[in-house]
């Protein structure tokens, strides 16, 4: 509570000083945060949440009020000194014109960059006038009357999902549905099936453990935020935002119309039904793969025989004893894949270092605050006990230092919130890398299917040749063999068709991969430059503020300087 109040105060101070000083960067930045995301994310966002938590160790401005007699003047004082100091101080260090130039350009570009950044991350880069905004609110507990399979756990939570859009596919501009987490799972599975090769944003975890361990309320809120984030990411994907699946999920009232493809029970059932047919082959034809199926990933587990075969194929591939008929020949792709793997590695390293940087920044801010408070106490003590004028002088000096230390501590805290906000992109991209890996997995699975079908074909071919050779030895033909050959040929035809479909599917996935990679490169370029600029601009801006805070003290105490 205190934290938020304090933050509010800080902002008020920022805005107040903005009026006086147009060139002050940080105030503009504060403005941009609000403009960038919609209002709810401001209070919910991880960065801001963190910031408010870190208030607590330093109880905010209260201790000040006790000792600081000029508290009311403070904002004025500091802003006016800010106004003067950067220029006057810089003029000592470097030509003022240079400093000014840097300052201005930095300011101007910030707005541009933030806007560009906002566009690329929250809406389609192609048409920025289109919008698809989603919010997840109002979690409600409901009784599950139908599901008797899971005893006990027959309550679930539904969330109100509100959509605002001007996309023509949607009939209307605003609508709400209620969905439960299971529906989101269905959506994500359907998307994974339908959009193989795309970089599909990752669905939030089922988090079975957390749901048991965490406070119910807390868990639901966390899930709500995660769902909102997930749906927004889906809405930002140029292809998926226009998908039927997403539209149905967002738009159709009542029960989710999507087929549950990954329901464990039904999956097992599917497989079990097919199993005997395939394994024992009542008819040889039916042993052939259903051409429609090959465009689906085998890993879904509906087709156990196929899984079995593909597994063998992958083992054969690994051993390298027989070269599979079709190998990944796309050199450029392989290169890119390797590069992305390296990138992922370095990215995870950077994100780790970024975390420790944030931690160190938080620590230094906190310690500065504690130092400030220690001096506040000392100041109070000295002024109460003062017997000599020298003690009063010292107490006054101390108060300045204490005030500045606490100010600097708050600046560090703000800076840290901004740093978290910007460097969070790193974490986000770690997630993106997972989706890339998924898309690559789609691709290699599709390739495996093609390979399996090809070796199946050559197998069939070999059998046919053998049978034909055997049949040709018997004059007049061997009826049963001829019939067998006919059957095999039919199987081969079906398999061949399946292979062709599999190849097409593979090609499609390849194409999707390629397009997505291009999109990723472009977005990453924008996002990372946005991140870098945001990070750097905030570091610079807050450092400037801190410098001016300390310069004031340094000037006030310059009488004590050595040699003076």
């Amino acid at each position, binding site marked *: 509570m205190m934290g938020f109040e304090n933050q509010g105060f800080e902002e008020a101070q920022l805005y107040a000083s903005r009026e006086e000083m147009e060139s002050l960067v940080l105030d503009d930045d504060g403005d941009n945060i609000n403009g960038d995301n919609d209002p709810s994310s401001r209070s919910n966002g991880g960065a801001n949440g963190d910031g408010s938590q870190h208030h607590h160790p330093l109880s905010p401005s209260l201790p000040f009020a006790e000792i600081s007699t000029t508290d009311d003047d403070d904002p004025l004082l500091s802003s006016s000194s800010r106004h003067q100091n950067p220029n006057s101080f810089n003029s000592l260090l470097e030509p003022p014109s240079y400093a000014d130039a840097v300052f201005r350009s930095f300011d101007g570009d910030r707005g541009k960059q933030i806007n560009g950044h906002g566009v690329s991350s929250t809406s389609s880069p192609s048409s920025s006038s289109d919008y698809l905004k989603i919010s997840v609110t109002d979690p409600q507990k409901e009784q599950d009357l139908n599901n008797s399979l899971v005893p006990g756990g027959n309550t679930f939570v539904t969330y109100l999902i509100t959509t605002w859009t001007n996309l023509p596919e949607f009939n209307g501009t605003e609508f709400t549905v209620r969905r439960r987490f299971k529906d989101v799972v269905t959506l994500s599975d359907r998307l994974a099936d339908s959009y193989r090769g795309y970089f599909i944003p990752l669905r939030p975890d089922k988090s079975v453990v957390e749901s048991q361990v965490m406070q119910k309320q807390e868990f639901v809120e966390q899930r709500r935020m995660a769902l909102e984030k997930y749906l927004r990411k889906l809405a930002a994907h140029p292809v998926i935002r226009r998908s039927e699946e997403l539209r149905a999920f967002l738009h159709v009232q009542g029960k989710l119309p999507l087929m549950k493809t990954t329901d464990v029970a039904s999956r097992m059932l599917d497989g079990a039904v097919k199993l005997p047919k395939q394994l024992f082959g009542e008819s040889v034809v039916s042993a052939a793969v259903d051409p429609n199926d090959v465009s689906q990933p085998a890993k879904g587990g509906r087709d156990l025989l196929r899984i079995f075969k593909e597994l063998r194929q992958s083992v054969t591939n690994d051993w390298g004893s027989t070269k599979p008929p079709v190998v990944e020949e796309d050199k450029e792709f392989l290169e890119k894949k390797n590069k992305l793997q390296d990138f992922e590695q370095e990215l995870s*390293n950077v994100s*780790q270092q970024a975390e420790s940087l944030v931690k160190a920044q938080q620590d230094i801010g906190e310690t500065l605050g504690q130092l400030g408070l220690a001096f506040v106490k000392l100041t109070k003590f000295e002024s109460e006990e003062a017997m000599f004028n020298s003690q009063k002088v010292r107490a006054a000096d101390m108060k300045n230092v204490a005030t500045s230390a606490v100010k600097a501590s708050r600046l560090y805290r703000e800076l840290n919130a901004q740093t978290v906000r910007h460097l969070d992109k790193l974490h986000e991209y770690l997630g993106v890398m997972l989706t890339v890996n998924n898309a690559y997995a789609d691709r290699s699975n599709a390739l495996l299917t093609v390979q399996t079908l090809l070796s199946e074909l050559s197998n069939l071919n070999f059998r046919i040749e053998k049978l034909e050779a055997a049949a040709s030895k018997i004059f007049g033909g061997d009826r049963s063999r001829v019939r067998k050959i006919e059957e095999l040929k039919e199987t081969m035809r079906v398999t061949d068709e399946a292979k062709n479909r599999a190849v097409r599917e593979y090609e499609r996935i390849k194409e999707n991969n390629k397009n997505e990679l291009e999109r990723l490169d472009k977005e990453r370029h924008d996002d990372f430059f946005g991140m870098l600029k945001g990070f750097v601009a905030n570091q610079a801006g807050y450092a400037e503020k801190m410098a001016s805070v300390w310069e004031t003290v340094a000037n006030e*105490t310059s009488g004590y300087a050595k040699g003076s």
Partner: protein
Amino acid sequence: MFKLRSSKKHFRRESTPPNQASFAHLYISDKSNRPDPREISSVYRSSSALKQRFFTLHTFIKFRPNLYTRHPIPAKIMITTQRSPTGGGGLQSPRSPSSQPPFLSVSVTDPAKMGNGVQAYISYKVITKTNLPEYQGSEKIVIRRYTDFVWLRDRLFEKYKGIFIPPLPEKSTVEKFRFSAEFIEMRRQALDTFVNRIALHHELQQSEDLRTFLEADEQTMERARSQDTGILKKKPYDLMQIFRGVQSKVTDVVLGKEKPVEESNPEYEKFKKYIFELEDHLAEAQKHAYRLVKRHRELGQSLADFGKAIKLLGACEGDALGTAFSELGAKSEMLSIKLQREAHHLLMNFEEPLKDYVRAVQSIKGTIAERANAFRQQCELAETIKLKEIDLNKMRLIRSEKLFDAEHEYEELKANGQEATRRFETIVRLMNDEIVHFQEQKTQDMGRAFHEFAKGQARLANAIADAWRSLLPKLDSLSVS
């Protein structure tokens, strides 16, 4: 009762007869310029060896006021030239314009590791420059080690009761850091400050021991030091006694007295309370200051690691983004060095002065303990005299033949009592001056520390701001390319 006390005194003094004798000699000869018959007679009158020693001590203390005014002019000049804020400018006028103003400046330099293993220690070059006539020459270089400084501090503490002896840096530290460059440099700086504070102190600067410390060759110094080890070894016990007397307001159990032997001066009570609380507050601030130094180092380290990682990420990216990343990484690494440097500056110019402040307060506590001691002695003697007086009156009534001896004893006691009172009063008087000086000095010291702190933080923040700001145009041009 008197016997008990004097034997205690005896116990404490016993280990130092040679020095004590030599100093007694010094002061007596010094006194010959301005003879004070009563004093001399009191020395000559005492017969037993024990009493001789006891009185020697008293004589020494009593003569000190004279000693201080021996060179009144240089002392005052020292104030005006060296302690600028305290000394009034007006004091300079009586000084004869003929010669250059007196000065005594010392520098502690060139720490060097001597010996090996457990025996290893650091020696320092102590360079003295002066024009004081007491000194052999205008410049003298001696080699001293930490224990020599301790010797000087202890000698001064014994002799100049009531004066706040400048504090020494802490003795022991974690073995691992004992020979680290940073620790050695911090200690050197603190030792330099220590000696110079003594050299600038209008009374301490005239100490014979300071002269010995600054001028004696290494062998003499070592001899002096080892002769005093008796005192030094007993010191912890002594101090504990004293502190117990000060901190807990217990009655003097040894003498079976019931009323507390504590001063009941409210102003002084307030001062004592102030000093004790001040130590806590300062220790708290110092703790955070030290942590802040650590935090600077940690942030520096994180920034360096972050920079390295970002550069590697840049290497993966190639093209403009890669360049941007490696530029950011380079800047991070550069700033990391700045942070480390600032951490060092902070340690030397902010944390260390705070620690010095804490040590000074602790030194004052030592003086407070001495004052309590002196007060107690005074009270005890007064009590004894009162008892003796009653005895004496009894004897007069019965016309005892021991009356003559008893009267003699009574006279001695009375003299002792006056001694004790004077001793105590001297401490009080000196302390009153010292407190003023202490507060003024600390305002200066802290002001400088605050200035250095603020300047350092501003310098760091500006370096950070400049570094990042200079990166922004590059990022802009890279992002469009």
